[in-house]
């Protein structure tokens, strides 16, 4: 009755052999293709570097002015714009400017990549039940897998540094935008789609004129979620050498520097709020036509 009280697990030798085989297979894969990936990711690295350089080497008043202008254009709200300026001034005053800019650069680049990849995938999912059925479990895994686990294959493949960190952040942050693009496309009013068909729209015209515009508010909610996830992952990614606000947090954990941890944590909260409010206000403005209802 051994099998009843103790789970009849695979014997240790075979299990070890299995793990070794998988590890070996992946290691061989990384040895063979690591360089290819690195070369392929060169443009991303270049872009990442440029954005970071722009934010860290430009004079701070110009950077703050730039953020204020973007916030104003997106939200058309003085309150949000003022909030952005004050938050950035406080961060700078507490001497976290450079780290914050590195984190912002990482978040922005990861979000842009997530959008570029995620929206087309979401559209494909929205159009085909089969693709949706195939991708949904993948997205489930991506969202529930502990974020540290992502780091292992990425490090094996690309080593440590900015680009592997960026990939890890992007992979972690991409599910919401895929899911919400899919949802947005599927929620488009069937009557309006039928009208588009009745007038002879091609698939592309249907997508461009009806599905995308009507799904846009939902997609914007996805972008917002993606930004938040990216910010959360930036701290974890500091474990594989991503610079920015995550690194001091990691140091604070290791050495029990309470104040250092809290300050850097609050800086992340600050930029999270900036991104959140600005992108939400922009999403709301996109739906303006829905608000004015006939009385």
């Amino acid at each position, binding site marked *: 009755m051994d099998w009843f009280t103790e789970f009849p697990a695979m014997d240790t030798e075979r299990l070890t052999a299995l793990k070794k085989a998988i590890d070996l297979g992946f290691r061989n894969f990384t040895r063979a293709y690591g360089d290819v990936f690195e070369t392929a990711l060169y443009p991303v690295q270049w872009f990442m570097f440029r954005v970071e350089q722009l934010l860290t080497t430009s004079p701070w008043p110009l950077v703050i002015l730039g953020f204020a202008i973007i916030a104003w254009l997106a939200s058309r709200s003085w309150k949000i714009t003022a909030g952005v300026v004050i938050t950035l001034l406080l961060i700078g005053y507490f001497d976290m400017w450079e780290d914050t800019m590195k984190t912002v650069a990482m978040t922005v680049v990861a979000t842009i990549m997530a959008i570029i990849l995620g929206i087309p995938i979401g559209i494909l999912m929205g159009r085909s039940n089969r693709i949706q059925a195939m991708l949904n479990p993948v997205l489930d895994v991506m969202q529930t897998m502990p974020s540290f686990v992502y780091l292992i294959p990425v490090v094996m493949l690309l080593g440590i540094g900015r680009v592997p960190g960026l990939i890890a952040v992007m992979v972690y942050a991409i599910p919401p935008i895929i899911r919400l693009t899919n949802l947005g496309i599927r929620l488009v*009013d069937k*009557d*309006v789609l*039928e*009208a*588009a*068909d*009745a*007038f*002879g*729209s*091609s698939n592309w*015209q249907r997508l461009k*004129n*009806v599905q995308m*515009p*009507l799904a846009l508010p939902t997609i914007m909610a996805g972008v917002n979620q993606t930004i938040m996830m990216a910010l959360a992952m930036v701290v974890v990614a500091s474990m594989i050498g991503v610079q920015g606000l995550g690194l001091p947090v990691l140091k604070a954990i290791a050495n029990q520097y309470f104040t250092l941890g809290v300050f850097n944590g609050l800086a992340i909260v600050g930029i999270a709020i900036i991104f959140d409010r600005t992108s939400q206000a922009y999403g709301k403005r996109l739906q303006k*036509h*829905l*608000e*004015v*209802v*006939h009385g």
Partner: protein
Amino acid sequence: MAEHMAGIGISIRNLYKIFGSNPDAYIDAVKAGMTKAELNEKHSHVLGLKDINIDMPGGGIQVVMGLSGSGKSTLIRHINRLIDPTAGEVIVGDEDVVKMNEAQLREFRRHKTAMVFQKFALLPHRTVLENTVYGLEIQGLPREEQEKQARRWISRVGLDGFEDNYPNQLSGGMQQRVGLARALTNDAPILLMDEAFSALDPLIRMDMQTVLLDLQKEIRKTVVFITHDLDEALRLGDRIAILRDGEVVQQGTKQEIVLRPADEYISSFVREVNRGRVISVDMVMAPLSGEPKGMPILTGTVLEIAAKKMTDSNVPEAHVTDASGAVLGKLAINEVISAMVTPVDHETAAA
């Protein structure tokens, strides 16, 4: 365009539609006489349309009437193939819509048909003007031309000054005017109207019917109009087809339907109709024997008007003439009144 003036006829032949996972498996059984109930119970497929044959002459308004579930909305969607039939032909002009490939179908929808929907189906993120140009935008016309056409029709349906409003800012009646303007801007010879006025208040519905009838005098398109409202059907339809459980139970002119309902189902509708406003003197007049007496009444006049004219001038008899004054028949006041008030059921009508 000249070809539009003549109008393109639509001819629906032996059209069947079965809804379900494998409709082709049951089409032969249905053609051999399997009933809707049997198909549903034994094979859980739904018989949407059964052996529909309707000829819609070009340039007229064909009304398809039926209650909900009768298959009328399914039928109209076969004309521009928003729904694919299980069997049958839909001949528009000289082309069979059912045989078109995707590209041909797209061209057909762009140039030959325009559609107005029950729930308006406007693009909420576009203004009235941007909605109205939609069909021409899809066709790829220059923007200037699109807007020129659109503004003309926006003005014709009475929406001047609302070009830059969003649909949500308009009332239901105004939104449907946008829907109508959008369809008319397409300048297609066929106008498909799927319960276009059903969602509107009664007064606004009357108003829209008037708009449509006035426009139709000028544009002479082939209009297919779906409705569940007999009054609307009688007001608009040159010809009416009545659908029940996916089958045509009767088709003909409105007078034929009111005077000779084909079965109890139709006569139960027709009983409530104000016959004086539907039936014309031509249906009641008797062949003339001897000299025409009384006053002349123009052919096509409805009974209500004829009775008023005859009682006003206090004559018991009149004669019907055509536009040139030639006498077509004689009319007695008691016949006129009798035809107006007698609720004929289909049995006495047949007798």
